[in-house]
């Protein structure tokens, strides 16, 4: 076989490979012209098909979501009316802090110190929490609870620490109270309720 190649090269030189090389160059040129656009169109088609599939999957849930919404509406309306509603959770937390400070002052608690707990993330719907330190007498505690229950915003204490601060034993004991207050934040736009 080598012998044949040598003899054919001797006879024809590089002319032998001229046509194959020309054909390959022309094919490469043709592919180079079209392949870029072709691959782009393929990718675009695949992406668009996927997008439409996702859209249709979401649209298919419309009826079911309307039913779910109607079902959740009753409980949610109550939450909605008693939640802090601001564009950001930080604003809601500020409102809650101000409201709690006012409430404690109104109930004649002393040494009030309300601390905001750090917001780890910001969501459209989320729980807000504050830490409050204040002092008072035992008779003030039922009034605090009654005030919280009747408050427009559903603020709630879910952890408390009570210490008797003076040495006296009797009805006039001074209490040091450390409590965690929680409430809910809703972003107004997202919490917008439409009729199902």
């Amino acid at each position, binding site marked *: *076989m080598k012998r044949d190649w040598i003899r054919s090269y001797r006879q024809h030189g590089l002319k032998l490979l001229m046509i194959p090389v020309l054909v390959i160059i022309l094919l490469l040129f043709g592919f180079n012209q079209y392949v870029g656009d*072709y691959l782009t169109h393929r990718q675009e088609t695949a992406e668009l098909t996927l997008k439409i599939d996702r859209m249709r999957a979401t649209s298919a849930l419309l009826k079911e979501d309307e039913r779910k919404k109607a079902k959740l*509406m009753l409980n949610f309306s109550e*939450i909605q009316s008693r939640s802090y509603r601001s564009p950001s959770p930080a604003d809601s937390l500020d409102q809650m802090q101000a409201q709690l400070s006012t409430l404690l002052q109104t109930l004649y608690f002393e040494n009030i110190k309300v601390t905001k707990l750090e917001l780890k993330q910001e969501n459209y719907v989320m729980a807000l929490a504050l830490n409050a330190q204040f002092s008072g007498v035992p008779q003030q505690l*039922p009034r*605090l609870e009654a005030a919280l229950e009747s408050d427009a915003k559903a603020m709630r204490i879910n952890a408390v620490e*009570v210490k008797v601060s003076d040495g006296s034993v009797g009805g006039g004991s001074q209490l040091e109270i450390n409590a965690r207050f929680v409430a809910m934040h809703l972003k107004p736009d997202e919490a917008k309720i439409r009729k199902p």
Partner: protein
Amino acid sequence: MRLNFNPFIREQHIVVFLGDLNLHVAQLYRGLFEWKVIRDVELALSDSSQDLSDVENRLVNATSTWNIPNKTFVSWILSPDIIGVVNIPTQSKLDITRLFPFDSKDIKSSEIHKEFMDNQTIFWSHRDWINEFEKISQQLGWVCAELFSRAQLFQLALPKKLRKYNALLEGSILEPYLHIYSATGSVLRTTKCSREHRNDINRIIKIEIDSLRGTVESEVNDLSLYTPNSSFTEHQQSQLDFKVEALPSISMNNLIANLLRSNSEGIEIRSTYDSIIKRINALTLVVAVIGIGLLGGMVWHDERLKQDLELSRSQMRKETPIFLTAQSLRLEVLNMSKALDIKQEIVREPSSFKPLADVLSVLNPPATLLFYAQSGDSLKISGIHGDATHIKSLLEKNSHFYNIVITSPPELKKERNGEFSLDFIWRSSGISSPKDITQEVGK
């Protein structure tokens, strides 16, 4: 239009090795990369090896069942008395035609390269011989392509590292063939030792080497002697002045296949490289057809994709309003659901003052509560003027408390009179009034 698929049909080649008393015929086909032997036969010849009609008859009988296509190329490997060797030194200005014993028109030789830089070996044969082998080939329905010297067959069996002169003895012990090769492996001399001279190989080698050197030297030191036949080694070692090295055993089929694969050139009678050109052209045609097909397919598919894209975009525009409504509703439902979950999570933990009221309802004077802590369901109380065991028994009687454990009291007051401290869990199975808190805390 008729397409010629011949370049893709398995190409065949016949090689006939003509020995003194035997004939080795091999049928080869061209694989993807190299020639392969598919059939071979060893035929005995009558004593008169010059009788080529006997060769023809035996070939006809032996190959009648081999399905050899008509006009298959055949190469002959022939002895030195049919194919001679002439060695031309580098860039020699000799008149080459004077090196042959016959007139140049009466002989045919292998290709002569005028610009060749190395020593050049030229094989030649008288046209009468060539006509004979062409005639036999034609009678068999084949086409005589090339005549090779017997020395060329063993050329490729030599080791890679060679000395300046390398002799090779092969054939029968009675009338061996002697081939001499250069350091590059090219054939310098090839001759047959007759019965009369078979015991005088030392002298023949010396004469040949001296003729190559152009001077007469008493010693031949730059020569290696090889043989593929082990019987030579044993039989003639004692008679030779040179050490004989045995070559690794190689079958005749491998030697023939190696010769056909190699670039070693014999006397070319018909060019065989046309099939390469046809193959290249056919392969180019196939590549072009496949390439154009792929290119056309790609262009066609690209048009389809463009139409699909347009259609998809139109569908998307149509479905977007419904999707946006559904997406908004989905988000709304998810947020509502999440809000309800968060509310559940918040109210799951008891309101702090209810457990405190329950604790105070259990404690009786003079026990005084000085510390109360609640986190979830877990409560911790500490106080003075009480007995921890007694308080524990009182708590156990109340259905709101369980898992009651007496713990070490913290340092609340300087006075240590009746200190107590307990940890326990509260559950809201009973409801106590918040008003009790005022009566009990600080008692």
